[in-house]
């Protein structure tokens, strides 16, 4: 069976879905691996290295794709690419089926099995295949580095002959994988780190990294109504919370937002008015830029300066660290393919939770419920 890895067609995509290591493992699993020429260039993997690991290097897309059983990609395939794919082939990539509806239709029609790394269920067993985590981790790490390069102040406390430098205040909104790694990295650099997330259980995790969780403390309850009937209405509480976060944002030297929910528009966490409260020279790293951004002003893949505040909308942050991003992504993909392989053969078992969960088109039908619903609506 043939596995094909095309060169990424999106220009800003520096990652590649396989590495020499994963190629040799795939071959061990019984596959033939074909890679398009210069597919690994941006990840500093030469065709030679791929060849040494046992892959075949193919120049033309058509030749590469038309008889492939499995196609491994990073970004979702273009319509052109889809048109080249064989009937019943399996195409794995970061695909947002609820958004890329035209591509879903195309794949459905061509009877292609579409799988998305976004859809891999987050169960214990699927952790190895959780590319969302591995890439979000990079994003969180890198966001701090990029943000601190934008910043016009130091991160750590420094007491020097020319005066004492106060540590920078870094606020992380959304403490998922990316947010937690951002917390850890900013802490390492010596900043004062605070974080907020709507999920209350995250508080413990934030604190387990030595950062402060921003929350409406019971002390700030105005003191009124101590008799017991003072239990705050949820609305009231939320408003207080909003207010509190606003205050923390306005004091921060850097805010990193990570509330990116794949396949959906990102929630607005920082309005324009709040940006204008911020100090000139402060930085917003918006990791949700891909899906519209958590900041009202964010523009995807642009660096905007609004009222002195720098807003970085780099959407594909993981791609800025191609070597490790590809290495980890390739391992995730490898684990998924391994999971789908039985005795040197593809065993596409739709009863398997991981396989069915990750699949959005199969045998000519759309198997992803939310996508189906949207398709019907439109």
């Amino acid at each position, binding site marked *: 069976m043939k596995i094909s890895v095309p060169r990424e067609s999106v220009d800003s995509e520096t990652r590649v879905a396989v590495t020499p290591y994963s190629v040799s493992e795939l071959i061990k699993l019984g596959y033939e691996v074909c890679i398009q020429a210069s597919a690994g260039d941006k990840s500093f993997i030469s065709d030679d290295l791929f060849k040494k690991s046992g892959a075949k290097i193919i120049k033309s897309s058509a030749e590469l794709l038309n008889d492939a059983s499995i196609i491994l990609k990073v970004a979702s395939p273009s319509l052109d690419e889809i048109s080249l794919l064989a009937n019943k082939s399996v195409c794995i990539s970061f695909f947002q089926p609820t958004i890329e509806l035209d591509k879903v239709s195309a794949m459905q029609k061509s009877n292609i099995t579409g799988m998305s790394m976004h859809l891999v269920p987050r*169960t*214990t*067993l699927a*952790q190895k295949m959780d590319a969302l*985590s*591995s890439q979000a*981790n990079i994003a969180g790490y890198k966001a701090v580095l990029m943000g601190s390069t934008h910043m016009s102040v130091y991160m750590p406390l420094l007491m020097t002959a020319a005066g004492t430098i106060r540590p920078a205040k870094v606020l992380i909104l959304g403490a998922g*994988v990316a947010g*937690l*790694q951002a917390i*850890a990295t900013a*802490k*390492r650099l010596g900043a004062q780190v605070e974080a907020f997330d709507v999920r209350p259980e995250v508080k*413990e*995790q934030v*604190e*387990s*990294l*030595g950062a402060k969780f921003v929350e409406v403390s019971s002390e700030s309850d105005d003191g009124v109504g101590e008799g017991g009937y003072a239990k705050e209405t949820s609305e009231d509480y939320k408003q207080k919370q909003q207010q509190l976060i606003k205050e923390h944002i306005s004091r921060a030297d850097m805010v990193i937002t990570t509330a990116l929910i794949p396949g959906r528009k990102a929630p607005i966490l920082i309005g324009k008015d709040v940006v204008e409260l911020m100090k000139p020279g402060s930085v917003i790293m918006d990791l949700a830029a891909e899906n519209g951004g958590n900041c009202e002003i964010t523009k995807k893949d642009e660096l905007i300066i609004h009222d002195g505040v720098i807003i970085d909308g780099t959407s594909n942050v993981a791609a800025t660290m191609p070597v490790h991003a590809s290495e980890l992504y390739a391992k995730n993909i490898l684990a998924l393919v391994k999971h789908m392989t039985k005795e040197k053969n593809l065993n596409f078992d739709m009863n398997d939770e991981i396989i069915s969960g990750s699949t959005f088109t199969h045998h000519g039908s759309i198997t992803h419920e939310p996508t189906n619903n949207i398709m019907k609506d439109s």
Partner: protein
Amino acid sequence: MINLDSILYVLSSILFIIGIKRLSHPKTARSGNFIASLGMLIAIITTLVSNSTVNLELIAIGIIIGSVIGAFFAIRVEMTQMPQMVAIFNGFGGIASALIAAAEFLNPSEPLLSFSLATISLSVFVGTLTFTGSFIAFGKLQGFISGQPIVFFGQQFLNAIIGISILGLSIYIVLDPEQINIFYLIIAASAIIGIGLTIPIGGADMPVVISLLNSYSGIAASSTGFVLNNNALIISGALVGASGLILTNIMCKGMNRSLANVIFGAVGLEQTTDSGSETKQINIKSYSTEEAAMIFDAAEKIIVVPGYGLAVAQAQHAVREVAEFLAKNGKTVLYAIHPVAGRMPGHMNVLLAEANIPYDQLKDLDEVNNEFEDCDVALVLGANDVVNPAARHDSSSPIYGMPILDVDKSRTVIINKRTMNTGFAGVQNELFGYDNSIMVFGDAKEMLQKLLKDLKEL
């Protein structure tokens, strides 16, 4: 005015004191034993010289026989059987005291006063009790008797009855010393109570019991000293009796039990804790940090397994301190990092890097998993799912198939967490109930700090 034999007796007592003192420090222990034996030699020679009317022949024969037997067993016994050997020796010492008192009772050298009669009863009682008790201890350790606690309804009550009877019989004897049968009755009852007090105690607690019986044999010797009006016996017996009691207490504390708990039997049952989970109940052993410290003391290779709980407790510095202390004491310490320990990729790395733990001590799953087999202690700190063996074999478990750290393959697994609650995956961990598993409950940071203190105090 001052007779030489008395001075020599005092001298031998002083040597005993010094001997015991030195025995309680590792560096001086051997010399302590030697000094004590020297004291004994002086006491024996003094006795022989100052008691001109004794039957020297008989004594010589007795000493030779005793020495041969004692030396034979002392040399031949296997290391693992030493505790039972000590038990037997101790029993002999106890019964010797009882015999001497009996001899004095049956053939008094001078008419017996009430005081002497009382002390004779005490000697006989304690000596006989020591003898039978020691033999039960020996039997349990040697496997002649089941190591399991033998408990039955009304046991304590029965023991109390026998004890009271012995007291009554002793009073009777003091008042009417002619009643030889009563005397025999005392011996019999003492023998029974020695058994009765020992059988309800489990094999694991036997060392404590032996130590206690050792203290008893000191008391027996001391009361024999009162019978014979001999300072050497009184002082040495009192010494052994008192220091033995203290030692017993220290041993009990080490096992987190009270002395009363041991004396009044029915200990040694493993603590059973309700797992709080729906399905299986698992029996766990909960240890104190002192006990854990002892296990570490004996270990050579230790693998630390950090988990999310370590991060929650912010115990990264505490664990480094413990690991450094262990390493300084010549032990090998590694950290086993599970790929998904914690709540974000690399969580443990961030944590341990903060505490400046050198990278080369951190091993990932592939590197470390076959290290557990020759590992003495795996120290699991606030980790749960990542060490759950169900992932290997229980296909119904939600974590089935996840590679785990095989901590259960190490000789002992010490697990620290706060409660029996589950981890992220929400499943109970059967590891906690394994035979080689030990729980040390508490917040990871506090536990590690206590552990460090206890390690230093060893």
